[in-house]
């Protein structure tokens, strides 16, 4: 009866049908595998099959039969396809999977969903790398991931027997893709939809929680929501097991930036322990010293690295004003030596300090005033400028509130 049929395909179709009927997600996840090695081996075993239609008859559910055929086609063509063809095949697999996953009660397919979502991201990454930095494949992958997330979050069943179990994984991938291509709308939607769903994170594995927190921490950082970024990244850092040194290191790179903007600086010990690049140590040193010029020189010299981390603009834009605050505080401290408080600082002292810090002897009083008025306006310094008297008059109480206590403009505090 089965003469002429490929026995491997037949066996897969029968196992798939059985797994589907028994709602055995684990069995299906072991069957629909996307790892390079497995696909290559399997592909050679089924390379002679032209048409999968005869095998689909073994599967009663039509959408599932179409998905299985799409998967087998992808596997068969994998080893002789280029990156672009592989992505297209994977998009087709994802497109065929969504109708299978969408009906109610199919939470047992979450493991298959995870495999497909992860594979979507991988093929997009490979294709865009092959296309010399294009982002077209990531955009395509993002569109499928968005559909998957919608399907996951629209489930009315309650955790843990719910499709919601796939939410953090898919949303994390979506945020990752957004950050990769520098287009934030998919990430905005993912983060806000997950928040709206009010998921109880306790049901999720530590790995899912940690990964999601890491990606949304990075997302908040790019959105200049530094307190939120600090909160999520710190959670991810603390939740990450010590033996995952590489992950700890990756989280710390971003946590250091989020914290620096809020005036919290890491110890040398912490940076050394997790082998964070020495450049962070130099930046922190100059930040503390208020050495604007040295800080920016280091930043520019390492522009490629910080751009790859997505933190170049953040560091460049948000640290300058904070360093001038530190310089001003130093001026106050020097002038206050021997006295309890020093409230009135002549412009000439501030100008000299700012010129030195920025290594810009051409900085004039109006530019210096502009910087100090920004500091006052953003509440990093409490005081007033008296232009006619050429004086900065500092407040009588907290003249330099801790940076972490200052609420940033535009709701950037998180």
């Amino acid at each position: 009866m089965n003469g002429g049929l490929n026995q491997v395909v037949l066996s897969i179709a029968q196992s798939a049908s059985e797994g589907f009927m028994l709602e055995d997600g684990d069995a299906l996840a072991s069957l629909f595998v996307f790892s390079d090695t497995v696909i290559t081996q399997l592909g050679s075993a089924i390379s002679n099959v032209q048409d999968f239609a005869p095998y689909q008859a073994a599967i009663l559910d039509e959408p599932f039969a179409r998905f299985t055929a799409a998967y087998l086609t992808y596997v068969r063509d994998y080893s002789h396809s280029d990156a672009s063809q592989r992505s297209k095949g994977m998009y087709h697999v994802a497109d065929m999977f969504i109708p299978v996953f969408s009906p109610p009660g199919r939470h047992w397919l979450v493991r298959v969903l995870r495999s497909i979502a992860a594979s979507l991201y991988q093929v997009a990454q490979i294709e865009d790398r092959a296309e010399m930095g294009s982002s077209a494949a990531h955009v395509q992958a993002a569109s499928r991931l968005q559909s998957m997330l919608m399907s996951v979050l629209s489930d009315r069943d309650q955790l843990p027997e719910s499709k919601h179990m796939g939410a953090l994984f898919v949303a994390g991938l979506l945020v990752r893709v957004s950050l990769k291509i520098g287009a934030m709308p998919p990430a905005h939607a993912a983060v806000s939809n997950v928040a709206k769903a009010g998921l109880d994170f306790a049901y999720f594995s530590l790995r899912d929680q940690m990964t999601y927190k890491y990606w949304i921490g990075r997302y908040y950082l790019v959105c200049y929501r530094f307190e939120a970024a600090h909160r999520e990244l710190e959670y991810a850092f603390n939740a990450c097991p010590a033996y995952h040194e590489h992950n700890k290191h990756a989280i710390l790179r971003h946590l250091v930036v989020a914290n620096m903007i809020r005036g919290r600086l890491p110890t040398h010990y912490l940076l050394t322990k997790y082998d964070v690049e020495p450049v962070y140590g130099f930046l922190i040193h100059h930040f503390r010293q208020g050495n604007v010029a040295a800080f920016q020189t280091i930043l520019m010299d390492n522009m490629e690295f910080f751009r790859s981390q997505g933190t170049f603009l953040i560091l460049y834009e948000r640290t300058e004003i904070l360093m001038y605050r530190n310089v001003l505080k130093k001026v106050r401290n020097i002038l206050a030596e021997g006295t309890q408080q020093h409230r009135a600082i002549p412009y000439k002292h501030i100008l000299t300090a700012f010129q030195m810090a920025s290594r810009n002897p051409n900085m004039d009083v109006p530019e210096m005033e502009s910087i100090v008025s920004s500091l006052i306006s953003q509440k990093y310094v409490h005081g007033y400028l008296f232009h006619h008297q050429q004086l900065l008059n500092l407040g009588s109480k907290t003249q330099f509130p801790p940076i972490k206590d200052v609420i940033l403009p535009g709701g950037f505090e998180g």
Partner: protein
Amino acid sequence: MTLEKNFFRLTSDPDPAKVRPLSVLRQTLKLLMKKWKAESNYTYICDQFKSLRQDLTVQHIANEFTVEVYEQHARIALETKDLGEYNQCQTQLKQLYGQGQPGKTLEFLAYRILYYVYTRNRSELNEALATMTETERFAPAVDHALRVRAAWASGNYHRFFELYRIAPNMGAFLMDHFADRERCAALRTMCKAYRPTIKISFIAHELAFGSTKKCLKFLADHSIPIIDTSDGGMAVDGKAAYPSAMAAMQKFEKVDIKGQIY
């Protein structure tokens, strides 16, 4: 075949008899530039440019001439403050340059950075920075745009308006679109920081108004109270004017043009 043709949005396949070939389109561009210089009728010129662009699109012509058409239309759109049209041209130019078509890439990269400052689009700015070569980064127009961005980001209004005064090419036309927003932001900062008063002449100079009269009109338009000083001049009372300066800035919290803000 006539050189000029009105723009109609296509709803079906174009009629080949009505599509002007490249040789005609080259003459059309010359004619349009001549007419723009002579008449400056933007409604007419914009319509003609859109029709020209459409004829290029339907024939899949993407070469140095296409780039020139989009560049010229973008410049005219900037001059006439039509940012919507400018943005369409800019998007096309980004693609064309990406395909390796030659053009005034540095001039338009600088406009693009300024446009992102206008739309406060940090992700696009990040992308622009990420894809910039060393040569591009240190080109005068690009360097100027990056310095504008840095001044804007750090709230250094003094440096921002200094750069506004010396914007190369047509950068000042673009900066015009957010100059008032930055003036309001700067005024809010000044009102918060300066005591007791800020002289009008000082504000006019710092915020690049060009004249005290223009500065006074701007302040009046934004309901900023002005007081007479003992020396016969005029000034803004920082404390009294702060609420009005805050209210003035709130009008600019949203950008009503296509552009991502977060």
